[in-house]
């Protein structure tokens, strides 16, 4: 009787296992389709009926506060020009996630695609298709490979961004210098890698920085939790660490939160690129002395005007072309089709309350 009961039990368990495998297969299919659908956050705000064209903004990721400020500037400019503007993008900043959105924009017949690339090459083939369909490509914030776009709107000269961060850390470390580390975004992020390259070159060539020693670069993938743990790991692995540069808004905020609650507060300097609203608390409690950024709204603003100029033929992306970017005045296309918005701004206890973004 007992024996029968047990074998019956295991038999039905086998049946259930088959059911479980089936359920697993079904759910894998669900996940696969769900993934494609889950990033599908779109917002469209049409600006006027008889519009000169349509502009699509493709940020690195949606629901990111920095991206929002950039897009706010883009929307303002699109409104002034009369473009019908929409924003498409993934919820996660990964290399391949942008591709389906570029394809969608192409199918919808966008005249201008403004993109911040998560990876300079992964988006290439789909941008090529978009151009063949007649779209003008403006890269902003983070460049694609130059072959795939008409112009790149850069916040600031990349070299300046790298150097201003080095200047700040050098000032905060004082005369004796010491070991520093970099907490970056993803290992493939174009803009961060460029700034880091300038920092490395300057450290190697400028005798003023001879006493500063860059020990490592780690990547927090623009994820608050990961960046937080990377900051912990840095301080554990390098007991002599005197400073951290984090050239990404997520990284600097996560590192600041960790430092402000640890024994290292005030002993390890932290600087980089941050949003005033995120960093205000840490500047006031003394964890961070000074950090920098540009006004992100201007970036989106200039990108939209660059799109218009490309579309109506004012510029072609050749060096020396000029166009008027609304209230910000005349902008010039530099070498490699790069348009520079303006110099970075430094934020510290004296001026941080003047900014709200």
């Amino acid at each position, binding site marked *: 009787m007992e024996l029968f009961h047990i074998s019956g039990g295991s038999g039905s368990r086998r049946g259930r296992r088959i059911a479980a495998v089936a359920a697993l297969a079904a759910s894998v299919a669900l996940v696969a389709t769900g993934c494609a659908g889950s990033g599908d956050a779109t917002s469209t705000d049409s600006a006027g009926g008889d519009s000169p064209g349509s502009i699509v903004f493709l940020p690195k990721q949606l*629901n990111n506060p920095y*991206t929002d400020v950039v897009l706010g500037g883009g929307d303002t400019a699109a409104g002034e020009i009369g473009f019908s503007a929409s924003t498409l993008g993934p*919820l996660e900043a990964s290399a391949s996630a942008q591709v389906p959105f570029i394809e969608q924009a192409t199918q919808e017949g966008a005249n201008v695609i403004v993109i911040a690339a998560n990876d300079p090459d992964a988006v290439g083939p789909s941008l090529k298709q978009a151009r063949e369909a007649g779209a003008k490509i403006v890269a902003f914030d983070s460049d694609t490979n130059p072959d795939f776009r008409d112009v790149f709107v850069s916040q600031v000269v990349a070299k300046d961004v790298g150097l201003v961060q080095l200047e700040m850390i050098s000032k905060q470390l004082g005369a004796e210098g010491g070991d520093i580390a970099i907490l970056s975004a993803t290992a493939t992020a174009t803009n961060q890698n460029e700034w880091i390259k300038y920092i490395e070159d300057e450290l190697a060539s400028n005798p003023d920085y001879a006493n500063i020693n860059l020990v490592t670069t780690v990547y927090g993938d623009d994820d*608050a*939790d990961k960046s937080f743990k990377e900051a912990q790991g840095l301080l554990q692995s390098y007991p002599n660490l005197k400073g951290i540069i984090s050239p990404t808004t997520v990284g600097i*905020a996560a590192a600041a939160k960790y430092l402000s609650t*640890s024994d290292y507060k005030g002993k390890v300097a932290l600087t980089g690129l941050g949003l005033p609203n995120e960093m205000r608390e840490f500047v006031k409690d003394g964890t961070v002395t000074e950090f920098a950024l540009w006004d992100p709204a201007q970036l989106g603003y200039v990108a939209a005007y660059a799109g218009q100029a490309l579309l109506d033929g004012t510029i072609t992306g050749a060096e020396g072309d000029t166009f008027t970017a609304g209230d910000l005045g005349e902008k010039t296309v530099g070498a490699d089709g790069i348009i520079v918005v303006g110099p970075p701004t430094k934020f510290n206890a004296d001026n941080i309350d003047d900014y709200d973004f």
Partner: protein
Amino acid sequence: MTTTTVLSEKTPAHERRNPVAAFVRQREIPVAAALVALVLITFAINPLFLSPQSVKDLLLNATIMIILAVGQALVVITRNVDLSIGSIVGLVAFGTGSLFNIAPGMPIPLVFLIGIVFGGLLGAVNGLLVTLAKVPALVITLGTMYIYRGILSTWAGSKQYFSGDNPKEFGNLSVDTFFGFPIITIMAVVVVVVVAVILGFRRGGRDLYAIGSDPDAAKLFGIPTGRRVMAAFIACGALTGLAGILYASRYNSVGALTGSGLELDVVAAVVVGGVAIFGGSGTVVGAAIGAVLLSTITSSLTATRVDKFWQQAIVGVLILAAIVIDRVVSIRNTRKLRVKEARDV
């Protein structure tokens, strides 16, 4: 505690005679041994790994995972799974930020109560769907995972709450210590002990094992399976809610993406901790140790500067090892039982 399958309560007499062997056969022991070895090896490579600040960080990093793993273990023991917990953490964490935004002076215990009840309600939705629809929990909670995340994305948009927006005492909660132990870690240990006692010694807790071992037999035996599974999901949701509040206290910002991807880490911790993925066996103590092990691996690989890629590979190997051990143990138990019963007939 014996190995906690209902079947194995009838452990053969010769095994009972050797308490040392029985102790070593506990599923928690290999996991705990791996944890100790990991800490010692890392300490040997980088002595800073056990500095007071680092120990505090290790405990704090593990705390949220421990609470989540305990909740998940309750559900997994009943042969179910809850994949929506990452989204629940996000909803509760963002809800906590919103509460402080609306009512800055709100007493912290009240915030905890609201968060736990909120999490419990979300868990109850899972429980209801699983028990009424009779569809595997894997599919149901995969659905609610996306639904809850969708609600959060709509609610939060690009809004984020920063630690500066919360009262100072709330942020300090996650770093304050009591005789060197972080307060929230003590909280997690209390949770583990309470749930372990209920699971090990209370009727309702033992019923969960019976349901996980064989749901049909449990029903025939008169166990209210629907009610018990429902209770497990509610408890899981409530504990996840607690974790969500602690998340808001510990990290700098909460927003639409908070907690995403957490569910798989937690299921991994539970499985590594010796809770059988097909239900019926394992303990919350094991799950908690599994959680500490996985979060410590991250820290120790960072402290020894090993490539991040290896971290994921190591977690994968641990999961496979745990599943293989689980299979071997259960096949051996079944065979022993058969032999014993054949002899008794």
